[in-house]
């Protein structure tokens, strides 16, 4: 019986040496994700605030100015520009300088004073859905509030239904809390997939792969030997990212850090296997690079990192189960924000491990049949 992992130790030894020799590359591949986290963590605010707003106040009397004050005080709108005609109002939106245009008609105050209904035109740029949604919600709410104030006589009136929303886990809606646990998964994927994406194709280009195939090294021994040194590196990177997240961005970790560390291993394993599979498919390092880039966008958009998976069309919802980042984002958000435990997350860990194993077996089969050389 041939040991299917034959050559593992030798390849591991060699890969570790490669890493040590090329320390510069390693250093950059580890430091760049931290820089990206730094930029994104400070630069991205997922709450929509201070939307540039253009105002055409044709009325100009007290009631209209009160309405504008309320809009300003909502913190959602920044009254950025005042114009005197419809054309300028439209132009400010089309040019992209303002996302919302508010037109208060000339008879606004008159109609209100005569107990008639007054209209306010709110133009919203729909090219950014989160901005548009927020603008609709806030203007509608302010309109409703203004109306109620005028309809209900005095302050003793009560609402019949009192909705009391309570936001769990991230009560202040801090962006880093929501943003960084998911970003951890994406950054980690980028580092690890790229680490192994070149590992095999480089040997193919150098001709050393052919040499290896004439030795008793078995495909699984070769692949795992190439993968394992990078598992340590990936894990180290995860620790750095988590440290940054916790102490620089003050994202509290509600669950067990140990569990998070443990469940990150199958995820790193998947990303490395994906890199190895890419490397076995690619003919040149340039091809491997392109293929590795191909993995990034689906991981961002189909994993639920930015858009909720529930709103995806059925097909893509099913597809998202094949995106490793889906599971790991569930794990990071679960542990970091919701304080989830092993009982909630073990299935995600198992799913990651299975995907990684399947990817690695596919890669190994390509070696078995030597397709890679021809």
């Amino acid at each position, binding site marked *: 019986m*041939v040991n299917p992992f*034959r*050559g593992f*130790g*030798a*390849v591991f*030894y*060699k890969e570790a*040496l*490669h890493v040590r*020799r*090329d320390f510069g590359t390693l250093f950059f591949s580890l430091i760049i994700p931290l820089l990206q986290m730094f930029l994104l963590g400070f630069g991205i605010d997922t709450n929509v605030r201070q939307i540039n707003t253009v105002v055409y106040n044709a009325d100009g009397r007290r009631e209209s100015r009160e309405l504008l004050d309320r809009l300003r005080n909502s913190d959602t709108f920044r009254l950025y520009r005042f114009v005197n005609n419809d054309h300028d109002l439209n132009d400010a939106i089309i040019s992209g300088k303002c996302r919302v245009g508010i037109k208060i008609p000339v008879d606004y105050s008159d109609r209100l004073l005569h107990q008639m209904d007054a209209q306010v035109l709110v133009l919203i740029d729909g090219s950014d859905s989160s901005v548009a949604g927020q603008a609709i919600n806030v203007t509608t709410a302010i309109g409703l509030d203004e109306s109620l104030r005028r309809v209900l006589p005095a302050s003793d009136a009560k609402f019949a239904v009192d909705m009391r929303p309570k936001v769990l886990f991230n009560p202040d809606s801090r962006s880093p809390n929501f943003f960084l646990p998911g970003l951890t998964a994406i950054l980690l994927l980028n580092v690890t997939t790229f680490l192994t994406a070149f590992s095999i194709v480089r040997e193919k280009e*150098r*001709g*050393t792969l*052919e*040499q*290896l*195939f*004439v*030795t*008793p*090294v078995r495909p699984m021994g070769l692949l795992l030997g190439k993968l394992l040194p990078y598992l340590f590196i990936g894990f180290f990177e995860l620790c750095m990212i988590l440290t940054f997240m916790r102490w620089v961005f003050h994202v509290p970790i509600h669950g067990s850090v140990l569990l998070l560390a443990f469940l990150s291993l199958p995820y790193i394993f998947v990303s490395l296997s994906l890199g190895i599979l890419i490397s076995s498919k690619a003919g040149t390092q340039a091809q491997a690079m392109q293929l590795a880039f191909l993995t990034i966008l689906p991981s961002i958009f189909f994993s639920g990192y930015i858009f909720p998976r529930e709103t995806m069309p059925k097909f893509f919802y099913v597809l998202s189960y094949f995106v490793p980042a889906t599971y790991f984002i569930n794990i990071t958000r679960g542990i970091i924000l919701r304080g989830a435990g092993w009982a909630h997350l073990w299935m995600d860990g198992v799913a990651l491990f299975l995907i990684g194993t399947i990817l690695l077996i596919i890669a190994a089969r390509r070696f078995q049949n*030597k397709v890679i*050389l*021809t």
Partner: protein
Amino acid sequence: MADQNATAISAEHLVRRFGNFVAVNDVSFRVQKGEIFGFLGPNGSGKTTVIKMLTGLLPLSGGQATVEGVDVGKDPDAVREKIGYMSQNFSLYTDLTVTENLTFYGRVYGLSAERLRNRMDEVIQLNGLGPYLNRLSAQLSGGWKQRLALGCAMLHEPKLVFLDEPTAGIDPVARRQLWDLLFDLSGHGITFFVTTHYMDEAERCSHVAYIYYGKLIADGTPASLRELPDVQPVGTYRVEITTPEVTRALRIARTIPGIRSATIFGQSIHALVDDHFDIEHLREQLLKNGLVVGEIRPLAPSLEDVFVELTYKNQLAMEGARG
């Protein structure tokens, strides 16, 4: 039947197809243990393909290959334990030192720590790698790279070593030293399967075969090949004509009756002539055309003559088959 125990490689009716293209066409040969087997042929004629088939890198489309007593088609893994292989580009890890390259290949073959240490000492001494142990292999010159690659291929003490163009692109001194080393090792019973373009290297082999567009067209000792009827037809002999103006002389020589074929070799022309051909008549003809003629003397065919002749004959045969 030849002694099976004395056979290192037995290739029977090897065929390899890539789609419709037949890269190796019914190739059979036998390599005895301890031989230096020179495998020759033009570029793209199938040399490397045959090596890949014998080392289990490429499956056979037909035929059977037995290497060191193991059927390659049935158990390529068992073959890999027994052979060494040095590919055209030496296949070293350039960012690893000499010692690290050796250690890696030793571990790949599963040598125990102690055996690895002993073998490394032996290989280092044999190849004279001592002064370079901690140098990155990227910084070695071609000749030293080749020695290191040979060392890596021989750490596990294979009885059979494949060398694919081991001397391509290295300097003449290193080339000479490599061959001395091969003779030395073959004296210890190790078989070498060597491909090369250099005819002087072919002359040094104890057994040569020539492959031409997938077909084996010569197989034997260098001496026996020189006596092939195709090379040296009955009633002919070879002459060497020395002259400074070889191209013009060749054109003239080819018009002279009695000369069957003529080829340029450096500052001379090798011609195959009829037995009753008059050398002095040839000299007169050349002088009459205003050529300076040096020595004209009979010559035993070189291996290059052999291969040129056989290639020419096969080209004619192939064209005949096509037309």
